[in-house]
């Protein structure tokens, strides 16, 4: 697991009650820089979400590493996005495929946020990251 992720998720891991967990998630969301308004376009929206989630997943061609950016109009989803970013940003395609977001969210007690019914866009983001990494390796 990457050090960045361990560091950012520490306070969530240490939260003793769920209320504290959500407080930490929202605080984490606050540290995530907002996307420029010019980037908050409908084309970047994850479709079918109750909340608005904009996401950009690209590979930096020279460095061959993943660059993920995103934003949300809700505080909880924005915090969860920050976790995903910490998990995947800067990884090579090989490294991306070795990271299992489901396991990490499970360990943090947040797995329900990756369930298909949540419709919060986080699951879609993980899937897009995984698919892009796989395509890179073909």
């Amino acid at each position, binding site marked *: 697991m990457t050090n960045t992720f361990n560091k950012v998720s520490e306070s969530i891991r240490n939260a003793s009650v*769920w209320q504290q967990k959500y*407080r930490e998630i929202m605080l984490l969301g606050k540290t995530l820089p907002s996307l420029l308004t010019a980037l908050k376009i409908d084309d970047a929206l994850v479709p079918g979400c109750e*909340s608005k989630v904009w996401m950009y997943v690209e590979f930096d061609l020279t460095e061959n590493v993943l660059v993920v950016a995103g934003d949300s109009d*809700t*505080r909880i989803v924005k915090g969860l996005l920050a976790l995903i970013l910490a998990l995947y940003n800067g990884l090579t395609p090989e490294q991306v495929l070795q990271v299992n977001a489901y396991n990490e969210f499970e360990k943090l007690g947040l797995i329900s946020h990756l369930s298909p019914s949540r419709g919060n866009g986080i699951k879609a983001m993980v899937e897009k990251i995984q698919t892009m990494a796989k395509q890179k390796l073909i």
Partner: protein
Amino acid sequence: MATILANNDNVDITMPELKFDITRVRHDFPTLNQSINACPLVYLDSGATTQKPQCVIDTTAKFYTDENANVHRGRHTLSENATIQYENVRAQTATYFGVNSNEIVWTKGATEAINLVANGLRKQVTANDTIIITPIEHHANLVPWQVLAQQTGAKLAAMPLNKDGTFDTELCLKFIKKQKPAIVAISHASNALGNITDLPAIIECAKSLGAIVVVDGAQSAMHLKPNLKILDCDFYVFSAHKMIGPTGVGGLYGRYELLNALTPYQTGGEMIQTVTLYESVYRDAPAKFESGTPNIAGITAFGAALSYLSQFRHAEIFEHEQAVFNYAHSRLAKIDGIYLYSSIKNNIGTLCFNYKDEHPFDLATLLDGYGVAVRAGHHCTQPLMAHLGINGSVRASFAFYNNYSDVDKFIDALQACIAILD
């Protein structure tokens, strides 16, 4: 911003004594008696779907265990019994709404019923016609009319709506007289706000000008139990799952001559009189709209739901719902920073609200942590949200199985959520 009722100390909080045997009723709904996230479930999402009493669950199981057969087909005992049962529930539904059995068509829900009417009217609508819709409609009662307008060249016209999401009946009547519509499609109660529409005046005015009035009754069918002959609309749609019945069942009421004049939009078996290779003669309504094998188990179970409701006088249910809703509304209005969009008068029991500029999604997620089930979002009413100047809201919707204690738990949880957010 619409109605702002922050910290409104003028509102009296009253809790009239409930005559209704709510303890027994809650016992009949097994889903209610569980914990979510280690808290007792407070189910406030009946606007999306109601919970089901044990008798509905048992009837479904019994059908598949002992009674399963297709209807209107086999000449054997099970099939005959299933057919009798199926038609009995149609009669029961007709009685519930005060109409005739042959005026009830089974569908899979309100959405399909509206589509059936909108498609069925296509041959009768021309480019010179106007269809009145309203800004409060659920997308299910908007999109089919948009499609009909596109296909026929008819014009859509949106009924005027006050800033706060209520109708001014006088303005509506003026608008109808000016537009001279061929069709008026309107909800009996708003799913997002719970506000009840003043239908009698609107229906009388529209019909005096020759319009066909289609009422979306998805939200009113259980809470208001309208007598449709007295209401005098031409069509009315409902979903069983919002009336303590199963999902996948609903229906359309149509005044018989108008119903029978609709063109079927689905064709196939069971709906025909005679078929040759090149043409077919349809049966009369309702059969001609019920091609294919229907949801027999669901319809049978819906019969159990109607029987369950019929043990109460409707006024008893309504009074109880109103008492709990009024208590909830006045408690919510007292919380600082709450924006409340639902009117307290003429409401089926729905609270549509936001807290400061917090996202409804965050609030609903946190409420779920306390076992409180509410809906967050635009509630399939984007035009209404736009009208109110918001992106979405939290919606807490009540039913007769809710009690004062649900309200207390909801308000306590909400205050705890606010403490997390602030």
